[in-house]
């Protein structure tokens, strides 16, 4: 079996001394869908950022077979599309079209090639008609979908999603879950949404204080009252 992502002894310390990750080891197979659970401050977001070398870390990370370092991180970032929790951070261009085209253009693709990808990505999230709008004009649910489109256009093999359903109303949440369920990519989803984890991810990894506290079938983890209590998730 091929690993999409493998981390061994991964640690990350913020400049102010906060040890956000403390010896995290986990492997994710290609095509697998994994939920990342944990209380506020458990280290979920930090883990996603370190997986594409956006924060300095100690330990070893392998992304689709290549050890992650300065020279390989561009490739790693192409392979793993990162979607931030707050869509306002991700949508920074004058128009939605430009936002979705940003990744392909940075990859040096021809404009025609870029255009095809942008259209495909925006249609996938049902925002093609809003392509000329500024992100500021979108509803929150639309922004979350738009943020997803900005990495769909990069044809990433794996997607790392930070709380894709947070802040969504029930209907937008269902739409997002359906959208994610239809994606062929490897998924790693940091979330507080147990229903999302149960619906999409056969496997869950629970973090607590920057360490892996549990790793196993989602159904088992989210029904283990003692464990959830310890994780501060009950």
């Amino acid at each position, binding site marked *: 079996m091929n690993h999409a992502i493998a981390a061994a002894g991964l640690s990350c310390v913020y400049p102010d001394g906060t040890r956000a990750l403390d010896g995290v080891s986990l492997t994710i197979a290609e095509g697998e869908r994994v939920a990342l659970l944990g209380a506020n401050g458990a280290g979920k977001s930090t883990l996603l950022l370190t997986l594409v070398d956006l924060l300095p870390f100690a330990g070893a990370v392998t992304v689709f077979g290549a050890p992650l370092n300065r020279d390989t991180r561009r490739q790693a970032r192409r392979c793993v599309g990162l979607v*931030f929790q707050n869509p306002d951070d991700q949508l*920074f261009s*004058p128009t939605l079209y430009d936002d979705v085209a940003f990744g392909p253009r940075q990859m040096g693709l021809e404009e025609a090639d870029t255009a095809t990808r942008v259209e495909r990505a925006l249609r996938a999230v049902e925002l093609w008609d809003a392509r000329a709008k500024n992100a500021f004009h979108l509803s929150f649910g639309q922004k979350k979908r738009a943020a997803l489109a900005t990495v769909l256009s990069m044809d990433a093999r794996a997607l790392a999603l930070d709380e894709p359903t947070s802040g969504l109303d029930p209907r937008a949440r269902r739409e997002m879950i359906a959208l994610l369920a239809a994606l062929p990519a490897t998924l790693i989803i940091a979330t507080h949404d147990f229903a999302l984890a149960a619906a999409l991810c056969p496997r869950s990894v629970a973090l607590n204080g920057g360490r892996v506290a549990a790793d196993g079938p989602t159904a088992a983890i989210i029904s283990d009252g003692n464990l959830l209590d310890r994780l501060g998730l009950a």
Partner: protein
Amino acid sequence: MSLWEFERHARGASLIHRVDARVKLTALLFFILMVTSLSGAGWTMALYAALPLLATGAARVPLRIVILRALAVIPFAAMAGLFLPFIPPAYGDTLIPLGPFTVSGAGLARFAEVTSKALVCALCVATFSVMTPFSATLDALRRFGAPPAFVLTLSLAYRYLFTLREEAARMIRARDARGYAGRGLAAAMVAGGMVGALFLRTHERGERIYQAMAARGFTGAASSMPSAPLQAADWVFLTLSAAGIALIRIAAL
């Protein structure tokens, strides 16, 4: 004001709306240069004022919106007007009574000249900005060869301007909701704390935007911009507006 309100009339089907932003920007600059190089006010100024108003009418944009935006120059003009009574009369000057003061006729004429120039130019800027989405303006700047770093910064500034204003408004509301009625030094310190807090949020946002860009392969180089040729209609607009602006200027000589 939200970005939505701000750009409410920026996209439209009218001929003016469809003119390439490069052309509009060129016409705007030419207009401003011609107006500011006039000496004296008078009927030429009225003719110049008519041009942006004509464009506004042709684009079917409410005039009120354009005029409101142009009024941004009024506070400055009013401030300059405060000094009118203190202008020493020139030799042979007429003295004009103005309320409790007498002011120099030459000084008043100069003030009327600069204020009307400011208003007419602001009217044209407002017409341009009301009828042009900022993304088109950025494209135009890029194609005119503005430094990519400058255009990127400008684009981010505009994008987050409205977001941060909302954040500031929320902070102000939260302050006032707690029955805040500070004065003087204490008020300034509270305001300073809010400015600091807003900056911290801004900075964090800047870091996350940077990460979001880097995660998609950003290396500091600007992304490429395909160049679109001007259409026949653009050339027609450019020729007509430039001719109109130049004719008025020549007539004023």
